[in-house]
């Protein structure tokens, strides 16, 4: 698996001084992204874009943990899926408005993240990945058996409702802008986390944990905080997805769902701010537009993955960053 080499290799985008003007350049990208988000639904199908945004946020949350904390989690589907179940259930059965449904899903993911994180951060590398995988398999089993998840059928026909009592989300376009706002919030939060003193310490821990310990940092507290933040944002993505697609199902908690953000992050660029967004767009677009090819989707996906790993290991955005000589 890729994770072994990730753990051993010197991390991509290791702490270096950012060249001058990087912050301004990033600001420019954010503005460009905002413009893209605004015109997007008029060029492409809004539901497709919402799916891209949900997965992009999921991949961003994952990348926060792996790219900036060096922690390879193979259990992120648990947070994504459980949040989507809670969000769907509270909206459908308890009649929560969408904002509360999404919030409750996110909170549950955060709690779950605290629990998982507290156990998993005690080990490093492959063992860390295996613990997260094992815990997420427990969540899968729980979802399969528990009454409220609806087993194989999942929770269907979740009402989209009215956001804050005024925005009618049954309209795809209205929903799109709500999802875009949630995505932007997540992205800005991650950007802020990465560039905060906390983020700097995280990068230091990633690059050399013993040195960070010797400098007096309580490494485990930092790791746990990052883990919970990542789980929370993954939960936000899952909870939003449940409202968008009006369903929550076993697919979302299945271990293969934990693999999706890994693939997206690697294709887009590990340890880059914007990489996971590009990766998510590429992977979701392939799943969507190549759906008519049937079994060939997996083959095409595999070929692209192999090409990515062979030709530009730092991912699409990582490649762009190298050409531009700026971190992205």
């Amino acid at each position, binding site marked *: 698996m890729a994770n072994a080499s990730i753990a051993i290799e010197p991390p991509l985008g290791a702490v270096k001084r950012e060249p001058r003007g990087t912050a301004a350049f990033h600001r420019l990208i954010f503005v460009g992204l905002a413009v893209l988000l605004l015109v997007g639904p008029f060029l492409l*199908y809004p539901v497709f874009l919402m799916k891209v945004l949900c997965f992009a946020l999921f991949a961003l949350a994952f990348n926060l943990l792996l790219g900036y904390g060096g922690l390879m989690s193979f259990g992120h589907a648990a947070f994504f899926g459980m949040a989507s179940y809670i969000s769907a259930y509270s909206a459908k059965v308890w009649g929560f408005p969408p904002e509360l449904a999404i919030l409750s899903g996110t909170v549950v993911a955060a709690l779950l993240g605290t629990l998982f994180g507290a156990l998993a951060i005690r080990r490093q590398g492959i063992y860390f990945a295996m613990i997260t995988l094992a815990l997420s398999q427990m969540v899968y089993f729980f979802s399969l058996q528990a009454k409220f998840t609806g*087993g194989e059928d999942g929770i*269907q026909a979740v009402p989209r409702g009215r956001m804050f009592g005024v925005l009618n989300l049954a309209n795809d376009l209205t929903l799109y802008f709500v999802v875009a706002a949630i995505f932007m919030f997540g992205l800005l939060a991650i950007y802020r986390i990465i560039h905060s003193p906390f983020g700097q310490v995280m990068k230091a821990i990633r690059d050399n944990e013993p040195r960070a310990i010797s400098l007096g940092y309580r490494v485990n507290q930092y790791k746990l905080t990052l883990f919970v933040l990542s789980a929370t944002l993954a939960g936000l993505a899952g909870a939003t997805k449940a409202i968008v697609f009006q369903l929550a199902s076993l697919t979302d908690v299945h271990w293969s769902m934990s693999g999706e953000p890994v693939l997206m992050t690697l294709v887009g660029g590990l340890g880059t701010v914007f990489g996971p967004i590009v990766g998510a767009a590429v992977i979701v677009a392939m799943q969507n537009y190549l759906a008519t090819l*049937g079994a060939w989707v997996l083959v095409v996906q595999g070929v692209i993955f192999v090409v990515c790993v062979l030709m530009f290991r730092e991912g699409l955005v990582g490649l762009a960053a190298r050409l531009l000589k700026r971190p992205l």
Partner: protein
Amino acid sequence: MNRGMLLVAATAATAFATGVAEAQVTVKLGVLNDRSGVYSDIGGEGSAVAARMAVEDFKAAEKGLKVEVVAADHQNKPDVGSNIARQWYDQDGVDVILDVPTSSVALAINQITRDKNKIFLNSGAASSDLTGAQCSPNTVHWTYDTVQLANVTGGAMVRQGGNTWFFLTADYAFGHALERDTAAVVTKNGGKIVGSVKTPFPSNDFSSFLLQAQASKAKVIGLANAGGDTVNSIKQAAEFGITQGGQSLAGMLVFVNDVQALGLKTAQGLVFSETFYWDENDATRAWSRRYGERMGGKMPNMTNAGVYSSVLHYLKAVEAEKSKDPQKVMARMKATPTDDPLFGKGSVRSDGRKMHDAFLLEVKKPEESKGPWDVAKILAKVPAEQTFRPLAESNCPLVGKS
């Protein structure tokens, strides 16, 4: 422009528009199923081929209908499936979605189709909720469902003398439901449940469960599972010589393709239910042979046949209505009796249940088989009224209103 002229122009435009519509109705059918995963052998390309055959056999072009068939892979994921369905309905002008195996995806499409007021003709999914609690005025559940499987396999087996049962149940909602429904039918028909065991889902090793089943001395071992679990349990039952030992194996959800893939040596003696068997009569044989020519010799299963039959009935309704308005077409489909070479005569009920007879089949012994697809013999034919859930017991809100 004065008002009079405007009126004239408007009338002319309307007349012109209806004139065009009468001349040609354009219909787009979308076959949405698993084309790459575990169920691709059951639906997959075969269902798309069946849909195209129905369009050709209906001679749509001669009757002024322009019909296009598109296909996509839902990968057994509800979110992928619902995304494709929304896009088909919103952007690509698809009028009808066909097939859709995997209950979770089917239930999602059921909801979307209702919201968008289109038509959903399901053939591949098993969940009886499609015509029960979640029934919709826009959905017809064509081929089979869990109630029918339980009724035919459970009921007919008891009548054939298999009156003591032991269940191997996949330990999740679908398996539990299948066991519960089948057990109810068995008891109602005078049979007895001597025991059951829950198997982890999914599982590769059924040996200890099969030994329990063997020790129970039950005449019938019911496999309340699906897909890979069914295949694995049948294979391992063969290794234990269970059917040779006098016990029967009853698969709750087995397709003819599964039997063919397992081979007669392994699957012989297995009892299962389908609503269509290719070797039933001359008409089904002739159609299946034409299907086989396009599918490299493969024979169709009930899902493929269901897609063909549903497309045919839908196109007849569109032709009669000279319109593809979903409400009108659905009303016509429910009002007109169905008749096709594959399922014979039948009807579409107010809850969206398509009614037709079902078969209890038994896998042949290798020496009885005359060809690679000659895999089963028909033990019993169960009339539609005895096999599907009666309307009186229905929890579908549509029943009684129409």
